[in-house]
């Protein structure tokens, strides 16, 4: 809770994951997901796996679903590019996939290396059949992640929620 008695949006994502029986959390660490990852690691009903590259998480969650369980992939926009060929298994096999992507390379980005993949994130996801939602304000996070989870697991499709830099806060690069 913040000083206004409103839950932090990161806590709300965790709540949505719990409420939707998400038991497997695959992630490549990222500042935008840091608090959420800590929540998941502390939850004895969740198995949290750190990946070396994001495509492992796509494969891992295909395996979780084969085993009868639900998972989530927490990654940064640069890692979306690492998932592409593995998404062919998701699309061909009509596997549900819930991805929560913290964005870089968009709103006010000061690190030019982040821009190409950040700008292409939505387009490449959609090219592989992933349905893309965007949460741009704290007030929108809970309902957006909830709708994504319902859509993914209810209708057996791949859904990515992009958490925008407007929401997360743009990382500043100052040497002064």
């Amino acid at each position, binding site marked *: 809770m913040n000083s206004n008695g409103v839950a932090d949006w990161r806590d709300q994502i965790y709540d949505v994951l719990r409420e939707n029986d998400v038991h497997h959390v695959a992630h490549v660490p990222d500042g935008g997901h840091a608090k959420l990852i800590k929540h998941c690691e502390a939850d004895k009903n969740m198995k949290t796996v750190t990946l070396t590259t994001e495509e492992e998480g796509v*494969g891992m969650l295909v395996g979780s679903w084969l085993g009868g369980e639900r998972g989530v992939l927490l990654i940064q926009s640069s890692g979306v590019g690492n998932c592409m060929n593995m998404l062919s298994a998701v699309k061909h096999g009509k*596997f549900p996939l819930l991805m929560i992507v913290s964005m870089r390379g968009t709103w006010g980005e000061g690190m030019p290396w982040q821009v190409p993949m950040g700008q292409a994130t939505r387009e490449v996801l959609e090219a592989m059949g992933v349905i893309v939602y965007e949460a741009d304000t704290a007030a929108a996070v809970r309902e957006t992640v909830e709708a994504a989870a319902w859509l993914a697991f209810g209708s057996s499709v791949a859904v990515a929620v992009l958490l925008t830099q407007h929401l997360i806060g743009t990382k500043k690069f100052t040497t002064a």
Partner: protein
Amino acid sequence: MSTTATRISLERRGVVKALVADRGNDLLAVSGIGSPCWDLAAAGDHPMNFYLNGAMGGAASIGLGLALAQPGKRVMVITGDGELLMNLGILATIGVAAPKNLSVVVLDNQVYLETGAQPTHTAHGVDLTAVAKACTIASAETIYEQGQLDAALPRIRRADGPIFVVIKILPDKAKLVLPPLEATYTKHRIREALTGRP
């Protein structure tokens, strides 16, 4: 070629048949793209097989997810050296996640058989077992002949894992035996076998 080339005598079909023999309903098998899929099908199609005949580099990742979701079953990944080489990082992830019920078996013929038998890095001395050990998978070994395979089978099927085994096999093509190619079908089949619902 590696110095061990002259010792290789195992053929792939016999190896895979032995790996899944008398499996009952406690073994889940995930095969990597190409020949391992044909081998697993040739050993006998089974509701608890998942043939990953695409998404190269993903077989061990799928095995990890399946093992974590089904801790009461043994999960065996059967894949090729080329397939695993596409994502060696998964060995570090498996080593750290350390699922006790996961075995990763690499059928190492030292070539990309489906594309014209071009040598893989294992033909030039890259040691996948040493990589697995360095990734904290303590139970890792390379098998060259039948006696070693016979001795290792109970461990591959039942011992606390993660288990990693490289089996050096001849680079010969076996008769094509196609498994079901639709993953929507094999997905529903395996989930139904495990949970009673698709």
